[in-house]
């Protein structure tokens, strides 16, 4: 929202220094996004008439202009613009002029012919952000005079405010001025209104058939109008505020809205002499001022000509193109209304038409501003229409939806309790009254009538915020709560951190791919898409599915790095997956996935062992359950009974081929929602067994169909309590072994609890182990 310093200063005697004003605005919560000084005259720029123009045969893109700046001397200027004609009066930057962008005008030539100055556009003069050629000054403008003077451009400061949703009132200068007047403790004058006498009474009939949508509709009769150009200051201010000057009537209407926040509309009273506010009929059309034909719905509110029944405006949004005033207009019907915010918002959304009016109505306007708007409208018009008359008898129709002033109570104690500082009752009252609240304090109770322009204030905390805002957030002080809570990480959070450190210790980098997938991403890695959630309004179709696995994202990141020739990429991710559930929310869980390019299942097992060791967890390797999308003979599920807590192995080569990934890729996935939530009991210390230990080595020939873990489990239970450790220290396949078998060599360390092992005991254990292994399908290797 653009706000002009000049208008603020007309409304209240606030400081002229824009920096001081900006600081005040920021501390009031009216955040200043940008602050621009505009309309600063550029010395050296004068109005000049183009006497004649010539083209040079060797310079197609530029024109030679011969100009008269009123000093009787014809100057030659090269010009790249194309919108001028001989006879036009344009701004000439004379030699030596320093332009707003810092450039100095010098005698610069093309084809050896000097240019004695530069003809200027609005952009070059700092008057606008865009222009389509030279600024053409009005005909008859005096030559040699500054165009800023000719156009009546005021030196001004524009604040662009980033207004919060609650401050509907600040969409008009008056709301901003009110806050600033309170801040600087100066009286608020408001917009200048001439107390001109009212003319004879003329009432224009109004009926409201949609009382829920229209709370108030006022029509004032205005006569004595001559449609023509606006005064310079009006056009200049509108330009600074980003609006185009149309004519004196439309401009006055817009100025009133920008100043008072009351959107309004001026109809030709000879065309519309009675109004009806009603819901549109299905299929009814209206051509809005932007030239678009809009098909209306019964949810749209229409302002209709009661005589013809035709629509003359989409209420709160935009007027009808065919009901615009014309040069022949002499009498106006001036509308200022209050429309319910939500219906206006929905109408604007439905028609893709956010107008200056709808922005204001959807935030909530002041139902009591209609009279100020009409009086200010006439005051501005009086400069160009000296005979303008505002007639008595303004029609004001109200319905039950018109907001009534709200009374909100709080207490001095409650304010202190919430803010943490004692503010005296008188101070509270004076703060609130300065911004239009009518406040009385009896004992501890603060009772305040909320001004009609503040629809955001509905309960005590809203009132307290206003007190805090004008007391100054900086003045409230800083304390620290006396907490009885102790900061700490939960078990799960501690274990997640431990896990992260294990992973980086393994040389693996954390990746964070998008949790959004394209349709097909999951099936491309061999996973089902039956249980996915879809985004109803995705940015792009390729990001329309929520992941049920971390795998597609990680593999994409791996491939990306591989394509940049990164060596041995190892990536991990800890993140959520969102498979559909029967309930409203998905079965969201936290998962770990690790992929390493060029690595085998052994690497994934190494990672799993490191994690088990660090987190004191474990699981069985079940190779009989090949996880989807994994290498059929090099992968296993990590199971606990029937529950699967992860997968380990290699990615299916078919999948890798499909994705364009070279070499093998190891994969480990762990369900962290299960594993991290476990809280292993602290291990209790055991005495070190100081008796000597003995190692025995046993080598078996084992068919490939029998897993190493089967044999190891058999040996482990046979050696029983004397077994300290068992290591598979050698695996051999090849010559000397039967087809389909391999040799597994285990080293057992044995120790007796409470004595030295005897040879006889060792022999017994060995015998038992061999017997157990052979029973499990192995045969001792001789």
């Amino acid at each position: 929202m653009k706000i002009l310093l000049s208008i603020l200063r007309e409304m209240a005697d606030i400081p002229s220094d824009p920096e001081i004003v900006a600081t005040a605005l920021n501390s009031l919560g009216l955040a200043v996004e940008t602050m621009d000084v505009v309309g600063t005259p550029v010395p050296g720029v004068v109005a000049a008439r183009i006497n004649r123009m010539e083209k040079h045969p060797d310079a197609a893109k530029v024109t030679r202009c011969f100009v008269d700046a009123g000093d009787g001397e014809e100057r030659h200027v090269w010009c790249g613009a194309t919108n001028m004609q001989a006879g036009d009066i344009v701004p000439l930057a004379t030699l030596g002029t320093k332009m707003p962008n810092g450039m100095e005008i010098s005698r610069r030539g093309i084809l050896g012919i000097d240019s004695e100055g530069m003809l200027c556009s609005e952009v070059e003069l700092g008057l606008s952000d865009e222009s389509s050629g030279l600024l053409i000054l009005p005909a008859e403008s005096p030559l040699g005079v500054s165009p800023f003077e000719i156009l009546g451009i005021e030196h001004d400061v524009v604040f662009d405010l980033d207004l919060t949703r609650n401050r509907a009132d600040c969409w008009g200068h008056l709301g901003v001025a009110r806050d600033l007047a309170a801040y600087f403790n100066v009286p608020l004058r408001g917009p200048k209104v001439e107390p001109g006498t009212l003319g004879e009474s003329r009432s224009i009939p109004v009926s409201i058939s949609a009382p829920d949508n229209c709370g108030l509709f006022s029509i004032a009769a205005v006569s004595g109008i001559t449609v023509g150009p606006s005064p310079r200051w009006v056009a200049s201010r509108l330009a600074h505020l980003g609006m185009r000057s149309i004519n004196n009537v439309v401009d006055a209407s817009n100025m009133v809205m920008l100043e008072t926040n009351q959107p309004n509309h001026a109809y030709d009273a000879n065309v519309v002499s009675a109004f009806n506010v009603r819901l549109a009929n299905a299929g009814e059309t209206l051509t809005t001022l932007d030239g678009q034909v809009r098909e209306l719905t019964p949810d749209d509110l229409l302002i209709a000509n009661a005589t013809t029944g035709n629509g003359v405006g989409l209420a709160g949004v935009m007027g009808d193109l065919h009901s615009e005033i014309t040069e022949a207009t002499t009498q106006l019907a001036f509308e200022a209304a209050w429309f319910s915010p939500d219906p206006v918002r929905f109408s604007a959304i439905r028609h893709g038409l956010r107008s200056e009016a709808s922005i204001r109505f959807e935030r909530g306007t002041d139902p009591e501003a209609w009279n100020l708007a009409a009086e200010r409208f006439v005051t501005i018009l009086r400069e160009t229409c000296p005979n303008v008359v505002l007639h008595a008898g303004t029609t004001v129709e109200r319905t039950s939806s018109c907001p009534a002033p709200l009374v909100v109570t709080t207490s001095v104690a409650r304010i202190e309790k919430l803010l943490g500082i004692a503010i005296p009752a008188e101070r509270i009252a004076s703060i609130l009254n300065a911004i239009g609240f009518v406040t009385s304090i009896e004992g501890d109770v603060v009772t305040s009538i909320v001004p009609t322009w503040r629809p955001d204030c509905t309960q005590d905390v809203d009132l307290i915020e206003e007190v805090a805002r004008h007391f100054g957030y900086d003045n409230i002080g800083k304390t620290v709560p006396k907490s009885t809570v102790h900061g700490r990480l939960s078990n799960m959070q501690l274990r997640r951190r431990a896990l992260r450190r294990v992973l980086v210790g393994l040389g693996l980098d954390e990746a964070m791919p998008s949790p959004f997938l394209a349709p097909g991403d999951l099936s491309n890695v061999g996973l089902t898409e039956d249980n996915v959630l879809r985004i109803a309004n995705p940015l792009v179709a390729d990001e329309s599915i929520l992941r049920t696995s971390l795998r597609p994202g990680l593999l994409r990141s791996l491939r990306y790095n591989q394509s940049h020739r990164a060596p041995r990429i190892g990536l991990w991710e800890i993140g959520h997956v969102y498979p559909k559930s029967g309930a409203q929310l998905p079965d969201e869980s936290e998962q770990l996935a690790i992929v390493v390019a060029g690595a085998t299942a052994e690497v994934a097992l190494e990672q799993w062992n490191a994690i088990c060791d660090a987190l004191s967890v474990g699981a069985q390797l079940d190779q009989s359950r090949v996880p989807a999308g994994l290498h059929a003979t090099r992968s296993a599920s990590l199971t606990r009974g029937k529950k699967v807590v992860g997968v380990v192995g290699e990615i299916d080569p078919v999948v890798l081929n499909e994705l364009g990934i070279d070499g093998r890729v190891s994969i480990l996935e762990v369900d962290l929602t299960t594993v991290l939530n476990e809280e292993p009991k602290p291990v209790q210390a055991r005495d070190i067994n100081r008796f000597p230990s003995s190692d025995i080595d046993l080598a078996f020939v084992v068919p490939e169909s029998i897993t190493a873990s089967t044999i190891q489990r058999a040996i482990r239970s046979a050696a029983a309590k004397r077994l300290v450790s068992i290591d598979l220290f050698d695996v051999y396949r090849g010559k000397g072994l039967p087809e389909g078998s391999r040799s597994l060599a285990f080293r057992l360390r044995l120790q007796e609890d409470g004595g030295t092992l005897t040879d006889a005991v060792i022999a017994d254990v060995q015998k038992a182990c061999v017997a157990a292994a052979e029973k499990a399908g192995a045969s001792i290797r001789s």
Partner: protein
Amino acid sequence: MASDLTPQQQVAHALADGVARIQAAASSDDLKAVLAGLTGKKGSFVAIRSSLGKVADIEERKALGQLVNEAMAELDVATQARAKALRAGEFATQIEADRVDLTELAMSARASRRRGRMHLVTQATERLEDVFIGLGFQIAEGPEVETDFYNFEALNMPPSHPARSMWDTLFIESDVEGSVVLRTHTSPVQIRVMQEWPPPIYAVMPGRVFRKETPDATHMPVFHQIEGLVIDRGITFADLAGTIESFTKAFFGPGFTSRLRPSYFPFTEPSAEFDIRRPDGSWIELGGCGMVHPHVLRAGGLDPNEWSGFAFGFGIDRMAKERHGVEDLRDMYSDDVRFTEQFS
């Protein structure tokens, strides 16, 4: 043994001969062989000692025995000295033979294998968590796919509340249109914590959030926020300002200060933006905060007459971005190892 020598002379002779042979030993192995010749079973001193038995006079025999013992001790000293000298030489040779170029080893794949990297967002999150733990906060987490109730309604934004347009929401296809969303902020965790944890509550809630936004240098559709919530008896706006100040000093450093500016959020009243002032006087606009709105307390199952509190929130990604001078947020989410490996 020459018979014209006295036994004393024989001992002296054998000693001199032995010492000379020990000193001439060329290696540790050679020395072992020499010793075997002197004191071994067939060594010269064994012969001398056995000849002592022939000496009749007991005193003389004793004196001679003494002489032999002393000679043997002297041989031992000579042996130790020679052995030490030989070992020193041998180690020196071995050490020379062991020579490696450590700079070469340092470049080997094994030695130069680096630790992995945590994502910058994870690093920033842990740093923030640690600071808040130090300030007495616990850490809460919540789901990323949320119901409309937790993401909006409980936060004082009933259906079709205009303030909902402050967030560009991504909706999940569901039976009731619009009832499930990708959370647009971490604020829904506030409600869950209020419902699940008995007060007093001092918690921060970091996590992933989602907006329907086209990625650019400063915006991502998926990014991270941290939310703070304090609920206790008698919590005031001044407590909010003081907690923000404590965080500022703990996280950024003692030269930094903070300020609050009025603002608007549907779920807090009064509301504020908080800015951090760098020691050089410049400001960082960090996030939003305010006193928890009574409607929000009620939605969390708390009585606003008994409990009050404040909440605050800000972006984590920006913390990482500013700390490491990352120009473009998209780089941070590229998973490009060439980017990641820079940050230990």
